[in-house]
């Protein structure tokens, strides 16, 4: 009985300490391209101003998916591009990437940027770069 009470107290304390609410301060555009259909889903949530984006499901199998994004600078000047993507499920892990670096933001969100090795950190006006990743989920 005494032990059970201790367990309950510990559980309650842990729950209290782990308790976090969430408030929305910003609505991201989302839906910049049509809905994804792969086993792992990749949504483009936001992107640097002046970019035109395309997304292609290049490979899909029962445990994962590969996507490729075409990023076009539709603006007048040179731009350091970035794209904010969300992968579903959030636990999906990338097992391959090309032409970009990703920063994990939590809950399946990633920020993608160009890399020096691919010479696509900045895009001239009208320039296009193709980047991609495969995920296991």
């Amino acid at each position, binding site marked *: 009985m005494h032990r059970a009470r201790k367990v309950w107290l510990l559980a309650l304390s842990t729950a209290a300490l782990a308790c976090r609410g*969430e408030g*929305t301060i910003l*609505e991201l555009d989302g839906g910049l391209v049509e809905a994804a259909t792969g086993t792992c889903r990749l949504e483009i949530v936001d992107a640097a101003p002046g970019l035109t984006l395309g997304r292609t499901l290049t490979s899909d199998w029962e445990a994962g998916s590969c996507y490729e994004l075409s990023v076009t600078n539709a603006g007048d000047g040179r731009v350091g591009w970035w794209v904010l993507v969300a992968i579903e499920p959030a636990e999906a892990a990338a097992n391959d990437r090309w032409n970009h670096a990703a920063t994990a933001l939590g809950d399946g*969100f990633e920020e993608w940027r160009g890399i020096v090795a691919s010479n696509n950190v900045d895009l001239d006006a009208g320039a296009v770069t193709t980047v991609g990743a495969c995920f296991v989920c």
Partner: protein
Amino acid sequence: MSWAGLVAVALALVGAPAASAGVEPDAAPSPADADADPAEARGPWIAVALAEGDALAAEPLALTLSGHLADLGVTPTVEARGADEAIARRIAWARASLREGAEAAFWIAAAPAESPGEARLFLLHGDPARLYARPLALPEDPLERQEILGIVIRGLVDALLGRDAPLDMEEVALPEAEAERPAAAPPADAAAAAVGDEGAAPAEPAPPRARLLLGLGYAGSSFAGALPWGHGAALELGAITRPGIVVAGELGWIIHGVLTPTLGGAAYPDARLRLGRAGLGLRVGYAIRFGARRLGLVEPALVARGEAVIWWPQAGSRALRGAGMRVALGPAATLGVELGRGLALALRGELDLWVRNLDLAAHSSVGSVVVVRPPRVGASVLAGLRYAR
């Protein structure tokens, strides 16, 4: 109540049967000499009673007190009383002094054996009479002792003149038999006789009432790396019980600087917002006084606080408006210094352990991503004035 006959201070060291006649400076007439109303005839005066056998003598103490009180226009009367006098008899004597035109009476309870030098000064004054007490460190040397009494009594008389509560004294309840006595008390001799059963008289006054506590001042608090510190104001209302237990409610409002949301390396300058926090807290602590005149204050406490976090967009911003709740528990410590008349300067630090926290997030059609994640531990500071009465 008129100033005439405002303060009678009777200082009697614990003990001793009632004894000798009062001594006062040459210029002051005795209340007994007045033909009509003695208080009217002699002006404001105080009575000081000494314990027989005390290192002090009545006459030099009367002269010292007279010097300290001259600018207040108050005349002292000093008298020696028995060193083993019961408290009921002492209070009866003090009441008799009040009826003669005085409205207050002081005496000193001798230092207990375990802490020699730490005597206790009592004051009875007002109508209905109220009893106050404070610790008093008295040196061995009679001249120093005399001077300290002069300074302390002068401060008290000055406070009473200003119709304030006696400075640095805590109110204590009168012994029950005393408290129940009607205001129109019998003459001094009868009063003394009424409490003649010394065996039945309480040895010490009963525990006193709680005091009201009010506080107002600056409040600052941490939130998160993106919004490190906010500034605002806080108000507190509570009570201090006689043993020094403090129970207070706190109300605060803090506002932070402008937040530009950032996700990864991407900033959203078109989504700037402001964030404010409205807090409601409960503090339970223990006030400990220290220092030569017990003007210092330290108060360890536990604080529980609920907080509404409110955010709103800046002009032209696409940020959303919203609100959320957080709850914290944590230790706090207050340092203070008494300024007099119940006012004190106070500085408090709190450690906030957020048991219910709030993330600020960006929402999209596929879910939410956290933009600001406040840590589990934060800090708050409050600095301002507090008033206890």
